[in-house]
C-alpha cells in the first residue's frame, strides 16, 4: 500500500484551521466560538501527527496527547465560565460581553 504523502495531510490541516478561524471571526455565540477553537486545535494536532510520521519519531504523537489534555481542561474551564456568565447576564453573545465590568 502506497503511503499518502505528508503534504496532503498538511493541506487538510490548513483547510480545517482556516475553517476554524472563519468560525471564530464570524460566529457571535460564545459556545460556537469554542467549537471553532476546537476545530483549530484539531487541525494543529493533525499536522503534528503527520510530521510525527514523516520523521519516524513518536514525540509528535506524544505532544498531541498533551494538547488533547490541555483542550479538555480548557473546555471544562471555558464552559464553566460561560455558565457562570449566563447566570449573571442571561446571554452568551460575545458582543454583549465585550465589557469586563460585572
Amino acid at each position, binding site marked *: 500500500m502506497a*503511503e*499518502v*504523502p505528508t*503534504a496532503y495531510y498538511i*493541506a*487538510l*490541516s*490548513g*483547510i480545517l*484551521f*482556516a*475553517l476554524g478561524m*472563519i*468560525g471564530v*471571526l*464570524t*460566529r*457571535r*455565540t460564545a*459556545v*460556537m466560538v*469554542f*467549537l471553532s477553537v*476546537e*476545530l483549530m486545535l*484539531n487541525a494543529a*494536532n*493533525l499536522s503534528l*501527527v*503527520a510530521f*510525527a*510520521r*514523516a*520523521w*519516524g*519519531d*513518536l514525540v509528535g*504523537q*506524544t*505532544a498531541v*496527547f*498533551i494538547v*488533547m*489534555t*490541555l*483542550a*479538555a*481542561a*480548557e*473546555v*471544562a*474551564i471555558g*464552559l*464553566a*465560565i*460561560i*455558565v*457562570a456568565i449566563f447566570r449573571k447576564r442571561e446571554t*452568551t*453573545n460575545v458582543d454583549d460581553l465585550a465589557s469586563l465590568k460585572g
Partner: protein
Amino acid sequence: MLTFLVLAVLTIAGGILTISARNAVHASLGLVGTLLMVAGIYATLNASFLAATQVIVYAGAVMVLFLFVIMLLDANRPVEEANPLPFIAPLAGVGGAILAGAFAILAFTYKDPRPLAESTAALANGAPGPVGETLLTRFLLPFEAVSILLLVAVVGSVALVQRPAVQADPEQTPELTALEGEVA
C-alpha cells in the same frame, strides 16, 4: 489514498457544518463527525493509540460536555447573530483564503526528510506502549504539569459554577448557638 480522500472530504464537510449551522446542537454534531473522521485519519497515520484517545476524550467526553452546556443554557434554538461589524464576514473569508493559501504553499513545498516507508516502520504503529514510554521519559515534566493543570481545572470549574453562598440569616444565629450550647 482512497481512504484518506473519503475521510478528508467528510472531515471538511463536518467542519463546514460546524461553523455554518444556525442551531448549536447541529454544529456540535458536525464537530463530532469531524472529530471521528480525524480519528480515522490518525489511524491511517499509524497512530492507533491517538485514534482511540481521540474517540474517547474528544468525540466522547468533550462533546458530551459541550452538548450538556448547550442544552443547559437552552442555546439550541437558532439565534439571531446580529453582527456589529458588517464587513466581518467577507473579511473572515479573505483571511481564511489567505491562511489556506499560505498552508497550500507550505504543503506543496514540503519534502519528507526521509522515505515514508522507513519512518513509518520506526513508529511501532503508534501503540500505547511506545507512546507511553516517550510520555514518561522525554515528556515527564509536561506530563506532571498537565496533571496539576487538570487538578486546577477540576477545582476551578467546580468553584466557578457553584451557587453564591447563602447569606447568614441573623434570626437563625441565636437558635443555632443555643442548639450548639445544648449539644455541648
